[in-house]
């Protein structure tokens, strides 16, 4: 149970801030959901981030999950991680593995709770999608190095039409590398990935295949296997996990009760639930008036999120699908959904201009 007294805030077991401090990356993957790459500049300053985390910690958030871009190439990484740990956050990050080495390795082992190394399939598929013939070797080397210093790591495996066949291989590989976790995540056609939607998106039968494969591969013990797909009926049955949104007044509620996870992009824009969600649902922008923006969100903005969750559950019943990637489903719903409070928010936007 969290400090707020509510046992759940949505489908996640912890209250998480997903931070994308920059979109700078050594790779420009063909399917990157955040359209990151070596030519992308611009990043949040560590000072801005730590000030925000101080406010967000008081709002009940407990995990900082760093993504990007490649978070290990973010210039303020060590300052932000130290600041977050001092505030009591557990810090996780997701990396392509290339920068894992040198003094960074000991820093990770000491301060980072879980490192997820991303894979897009067996070696050939991975290298092809990453546009780098050495991408897999570097990811594997990162796992070996993390293992050697006792850092806890997992594998985040993107399941697409092309990588589905490699799921059993991934389970064997994760076991061989002593990974603590193997997370299967269905390909989501957002960002640069939109261009590959036809080639990579899972069809309904393939979603079912992925579900059965993950279930069969999970034979207990490590690596723990997790798939970001649930039977539609199971999602419906867990509607109660969002019960905290059935409020009349949220002014005294913790933000982490309302919004979980909270996403912050490299411009400081805060959005609920998932990267790529309709920005009309944004909470605001990191900056000196963050507390005022959160107060305003609790007064008005959260009602849009409540309406979006309601709409997502309604649409879930109408789609002829057996399995759902919930957060992508919410992103899709958000783009065909006009938030009521947006109109009010725009009218009053001068408050935070």
């Amino acid at each position, binding site marked *: 149970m969290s400090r707020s007294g509510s046992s759940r805030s949505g489908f996640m077991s912890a209250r998480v801030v997903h931070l994308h401090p920059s979109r700078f990356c050594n790779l420009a993957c063909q399917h990157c959901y955040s359209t990151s790459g070596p030519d992308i500049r611009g990043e949040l300053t560590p000072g801005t981030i730590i000030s925000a985390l101080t406010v967000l910690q008081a709002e009940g958030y407990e995990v900082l999950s760093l993504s990007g871009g490649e978070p290990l190439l973010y210039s303020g990484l060590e300052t932000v991680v130290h600041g977050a740990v001092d505030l009591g956050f557990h810090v996780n990050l997701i990396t392509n593995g290339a920068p894992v080495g040198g003094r960074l390795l000991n820093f990770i082992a000491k301060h980072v709770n879980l490192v997820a190394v991303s894979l897009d399939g067996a070696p050939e598929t991975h290298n092809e999608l990453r546009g780098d013939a050495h991408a897999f070797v570097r990811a594997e080397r990162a796992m070996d190095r993390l293992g050697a210093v006792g850092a806890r790591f997992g594998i985040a495996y993107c399941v697409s039409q092309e990588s589905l066949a490699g799921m*059993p291989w991934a*389970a064997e590989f994760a076991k061989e590398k002593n990974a603590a976790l193997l997370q299967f995540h269905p390909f989501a056609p957002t960002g640069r990935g939109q261009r590959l939607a036809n080639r990579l998106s899972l069809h309904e039968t393939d979603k079912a295949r992925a579900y*059965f494969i993950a*279930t*069969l591969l999970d*034979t207990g013990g490590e690596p723990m296997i997790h798939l970001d797909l649930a*039977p539609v*009926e199971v999602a419906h049955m867990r509607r109660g996990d969002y019960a905290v949104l059935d409020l009349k007044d949220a002014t005294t509620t913790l933000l982490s009760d309302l919004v979980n996870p909270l996403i912050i992009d490299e411009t400081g824009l805060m959005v609920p639930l998932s990267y790529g969600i309709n920005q009309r649902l944004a909470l605001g922008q990191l900056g000196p008036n963050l507390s005022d923006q959160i107060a305003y969100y609790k007064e008005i903005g959260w009602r849009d999120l409540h309406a979006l969750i309601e709409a997502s559950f309604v649409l879930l019943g109408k789609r002829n699908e*057996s*399995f759902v990637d919930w957060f992508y489903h919410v992103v899709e719903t958000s783009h065909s959904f006009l938030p009521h409070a947006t109109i009010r928010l725009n009218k009053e936007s001068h408050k935070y201009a």
Partner: protein
Amino acid sequence: MENDLKNVRVALARALAERKIADDVIDMVAKQIATAKHPIRGIDVCTYGICIDFFIDGKDWWHTLPELIEVEGGGLKGIEIFPWGIVNPDLLHVRVTQSLDVLPQVRG
């Protein structure tokens, strides 16, 4: 015995991944799972094919049972009902077993 079962699970996972199991078999089981009115707590491989585990409230089990065994085109092979026990006497573990024609090939 435990290792045998693990091997069969992995072999079945490989057969699924390599698309050796036809789409219509997948769709049939997927439909059953997606429309289940009770939480599914596990899917496993067993003698006849696959078995699906549910936990249901013991007070309503008599009404619930017909919904659990409604296996469209799936060849129902067995139902086992276990009381959960002293920790939660009202909870029943129901295991529904159905045939899966491809399993003998997977076992090799």
